[in-house]
């Protein structure tokens, strides 16, 4: 771990827990979240009585007080939610770390649970997003009524431009899918366990929104993940090796919208650049210090663009960066060794944080040797967040 400085190194992820990942959980979203929290507490040897804080996504349908009731928590000193869809994932951990670093709370559990396949499917056209009575609804008035209203379509618009600007191809996007599915193939918890794909499979999968093929798109999944965050000192005394939170950042860019930041001259995802610069500032580390990454992969093009925004390669250079298996488990810079959200499950980025913790512990099904530090990111195309986790 790095010597504590500001937020860096003050807190650690001590426990991780999850339900099974499926297409139909058969139980309520609230129950899924409560189960995941219980698993995460058992993982690190803490009990409900130790927990004094809960954080989740604004989008989560299970409030902190509802989860607290089901868990039997007597009191709660800290509760918080983060907005902007999957961009919240790493920020729930940032909230927890800040609460712990300031003494506001001692044990904070971050959770996210949903029936995102069997109930409210995010991949469908969202009438609710277009009609919400707030500024996000007003923002969506400029795209949804025109027919642009699925996550795939909003990302495809960025992908077309990225291909035009830098000569990237669909095959370049496909290499992300191939890596994810290779990793999922050896992960028994992954929906696509035992089912790797080739680049030819990717290319022959049907078009969803040109230029995105089906295999550029993540799954829709039912499930929940929870993460237990405690102080670095306390983590050292618990059951599992700590994953120290060396940096935790949020980022929003100029003229920022939710999935439709189309009105700035260079569209792209500069909000992830904000996250990256803050991660490197807090940690005193840089891209060269990261052994691997868990980059949010709801759609493959944004994985390439994240590599550029975080400084792993220059603008437009990601197609070369991901070539020749570099991002596969035996490559120089493995990504998404759990299978990512294309291969394992789409739990809004929280399952990726859990995989980061497993890599620090050395318990991943696709272990990478010598992981001292790794980077994890949250949802792209939205105001977002990221973490540097360290052994």
């Amino acid at each position, binding site marked *: 771990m790095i010597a504590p400085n500001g937020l860096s190194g003050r807190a650690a992820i001590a426990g991780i827990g999850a339900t099974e990942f499926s297409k139909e959980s058969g139980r309520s979203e609230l129950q899924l979240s409560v189960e995941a929290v219980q698993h995460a507490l058992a993982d690190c040897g803490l009990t409900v009585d130790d927990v004094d804080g809960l954080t989740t996504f604004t989008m989560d349908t299970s409030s902190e007080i509802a989860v607290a009731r089901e868990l039997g928590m007597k009191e709660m000193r800290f509760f918080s939610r983060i907005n902007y869809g999957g961009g919240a994932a790493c920020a729930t951990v940032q909230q927890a770390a800040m609460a712990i670093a300031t003494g506001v709370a001692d044990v904070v559990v971050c959770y996210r649970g949903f029936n995102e396949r069997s109930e409210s499917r995010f991949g469908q056209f969202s009438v609710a997003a277009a009609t919400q009575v707030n500024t996000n609804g007003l923002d969506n*008035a400029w795209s949804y009524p*025109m027919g642009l209203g*699925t996550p795939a379509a909003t990302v495809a618009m960025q992908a077309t431009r990225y291909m035009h600007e830098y000569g990237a191809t669909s095959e370049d996007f496909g290499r992300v899918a191939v890596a994810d599915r290779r990793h999922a193939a050896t992960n028994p918890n992954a929906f696509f366990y035992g089912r790797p794909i080739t680049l030819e499979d990717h290319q022959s999968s049907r078009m969803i*929104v040109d230029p995105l093929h089906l295999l550029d798109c993540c799954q829709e999944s039912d499930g929940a993940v929870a993460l237990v965050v405690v102080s670095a000192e306390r983590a050292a005394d618990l059951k599992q090796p700590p994953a120290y939170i060396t940096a935790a950042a949020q980022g929003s860019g100029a003229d920022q919208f939710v999935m439709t930041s189309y009105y700035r001259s260079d569209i792209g995802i500069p909000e992830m650049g904000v996250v990256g610069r803050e991660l490197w500032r807090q940690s005193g580390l840089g891209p060269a210090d990261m052994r691997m990454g868990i980059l949010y992969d709801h759609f493959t093009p944004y994985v390439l663009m994240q590599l550029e925004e975080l400084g792993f390669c220059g603008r437009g250079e990601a197609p070369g960066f991901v070539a020749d298996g570099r991002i596969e488990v035996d490559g120089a810079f493995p990504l998404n060794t759990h299978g990512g959200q294309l291969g394992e499950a789409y739990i809004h980025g929280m399952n990726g944080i859990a995989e980061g913790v497993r890599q620090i512990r050395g318990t991943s099904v696709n272990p990478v040797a010598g992981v001292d530090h790794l980077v994890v990111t949250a949802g792209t195309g939205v105001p977002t967040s990221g973490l540097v986790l360290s052994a």
Partner: protein
Amino acid sequence: MTAGVIRPMMGRDSQFFWDGTAAGELRIQQCNACGALRFPPGPTCVECGKFDRGHVVAAGTGTVFSYVVHRYPPVPGKELPIVIALVDLDEGVRMVGEVVDAVSDSGDAEIEIGMRLRVDYRRIDDDLTLPIWRLDTPRTSATRRPKETR
């Protein structure tokens, strides 16, 4: 057919735009104080900070900055596939718009970045008229010749 059409949220800061499309005008917010244009609109001028806003009527011409062909899943009120583009208006702002008649019978996109577009209007009902876009140079079978009109 109006069933299933996605209706835009409208508010004090955006009503003028939709009043414009109903009148056959594509309106862009303009700051009365400094003249800056802004899209999407909002209460403030992001250039000078004033709350004194009016609008100009756009020429209704622009260039494709990016586009998609939406094939799946279903979109309420639309028969798929549809082409949706980011249109750089000649006035200097950018909008999202459906480009009609830009998919061939075989389902291929007949649009490219840099092509010229011209606005048109699709009246849904008394409360909603959507701006739509057409290729400025009509296609002649397989030949696409974007015309530079500026």
